């Protein structure tokens, strides 16, 4: 079955936001929005749930901290306790003050890199990936809404007239 996609191009992000709110309130489902910069307030309108990246970052950070402690406890306390400058090395907690800097750095290392990798994976970003923004002006100064006809009960004509009534400057239809 062929899929019909309608694209509405806007000159200004505020007009797009208004138009999206208007259409969503009338029961249109917007698939996606392409823009050269984040449009604040668009996420709840088109139904994007809040990302859990920050929670991920916390988990990665906690992992980093545990690994750092495990590493230092193994190397300096269990495997080969070294008496350096008379600092106690029999128990982990006694040596803990000297372990704080490395613990902190490792936590940040894991939290930041884990989060960045997750971000690349969930956004499917990698070298060689082909971009799928429908119009290359959307990384410059234009804003575009994508409406998949199969998600909606309304006809293509209805959606198009709604788009042009709310300020879209170009409306295109594509079948894929």
């Amino acid at each position: 079955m062929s899929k019909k996609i309608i694209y509405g191009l806007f000159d200004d992000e505020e007009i797009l936001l208004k138009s999206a709110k208007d259409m969503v309130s009338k029961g249109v489902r917007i698939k996606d929005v392409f823009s050269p910069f984040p449009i604040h307030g668009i996420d709840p309108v088109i139904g994007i749930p809040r990302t859990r990246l920050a929670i991920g970052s916390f988990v990665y950070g906690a992992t980093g901290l545990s690994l750092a402690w495990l590493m230092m406890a193994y190397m300096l306390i269990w495997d080969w306790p070294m008496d350096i400058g008379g600092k106690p090395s029999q128990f982990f907690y006694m040596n803990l003050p000297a372990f704080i800097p490395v613990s902190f750095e490792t936590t940040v290392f894991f939290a930041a890199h884990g989060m960045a990798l997750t971000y690349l994976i969930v956004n499917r970003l990698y070298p060689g990936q082909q971009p799928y923004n429908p119009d290359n002006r959307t990384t410059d100064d234009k804003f575009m809404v994508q409406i998949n006809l199969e998600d909606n009960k309304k006809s293509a004509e209805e959606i198009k007239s709604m788009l042009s009534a709310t300020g879209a400057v170009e409306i295109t239809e594509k079948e894929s």
Partner: protein
Amino acid sequence: MASHEAHIREPLILGQKDYHQVTEDITYPIAGKANKYWWMAFTASFITMCWGVGCLAYTVGTGIGVWGSNKTVGWAWDITNFVWWIGIGHAGTLISAVLLLFRQKWRMSINRSAEAMTIFAVICAALFPVFHMGRVWLAYWVLPLPNQFGSLWVNFNSPLLWDVFAISTYFTVSLVFWYLGLVPDFATVRDKFARMGKPFQQKIYNILSFGWSGNARAWHRFEELSLVLAGLSTPLVLSVHTIVSMDFATSVIPGWHTTIFPPYFVAGAIFSGFAMVLTLMLIARKTLNLEDYITVNHVESMNKIIILTGSIVGVAYLTELFISWYSGVEYEQYAFLNRASGPYWWAYWSMMTCNVITPQLFWIKKIRRNFTATFIISIFVNIGMWFERFVIIVTSLHRDYLPSSWTMFHPTFIDIGIFVGTLGIFFTLFLLFCRTFPVIAMAELKSILKSSGNKYKK
């Protein structure tokens, strides 16, 4: 269009800029050809870099005895340069992370190039400890590897090892933060080349942009990522120079083992970093035609940070003097008396003049809003902060507890060559960056255009 911000705030983007014009202006140096000034600067930097690499190769081939360091002054220019470069790197992260958390809009015109500066400065900094090891091919011994490699486990009690962790974390996290911010802008460049009909450049920038499409979900995650990375980088940037200062502060050398070092070093790092940002930005805004984006307001904001951090540094110098006297420890008292009136008095007073007196001129509004004056003072601060590290390191070491081993430090040809060489590396990388990367964060700038652009502020 109604204005989105108070009218009394001066615009951050001058001229009649709309979204398209921002793209055109920022991608202009990438799409166009380099002018002769760029080629002149690039050639000079490249030759200097090659000279530095030659000196490094000579050091590795012959041994670090070719440096001026001796038994008494075991740490000299190498560590001075290391701390100087690391400090310069701090401004980039401060601008991109701390000012993001404080929602300072003026950071958006300068954060990209300041972060690039961070990356390049840390590369220059890392060269020094690595080459000071002498046998650079064994540099991996600083990693926590088992003792089959010929050493015991690394010592987690040592600030030098903390440094390894701090600097590698700092470098990689800054690099990731910078690059992920670049991804959407590379997509803009890619699509511009597509419109210009240049498929080869389009392909290259597509690889760099990781296939960024700019859909709402990706932007949503992008903003979350930026915020959390900024939150992580803020304590990170403070920790890095704190740990660098502990290399000195945890020792028993008079003049080094002071508890004031961590905040004093962090303030000094930000101070020197902003001076370097100003030096570079004032040149870049002229040569890359960015006068409408890096305005007198940006310069003034940076100068205010220079006053603040410069004053913290000044107070730290005076506190050090007071505490050395008040401590009653004669070694400590002598170390500071020797700094100010001993054979290195000229270094101490250069430091005092450049770091304490010159930045105070920025209290005068005319001076802090003047490009030429700012440029000159920024150079003074760069020089002064180099002398600060030299004073701390060399004057504390050259007269130790045993007067028979007192000596002076004289840099050799190679010392100078390596230091100048790192300046070459830094400027070569920065000039290449200016020609190939979007020097201003376009996506971020477009998002504040309506609130801070001259065109919309009516």
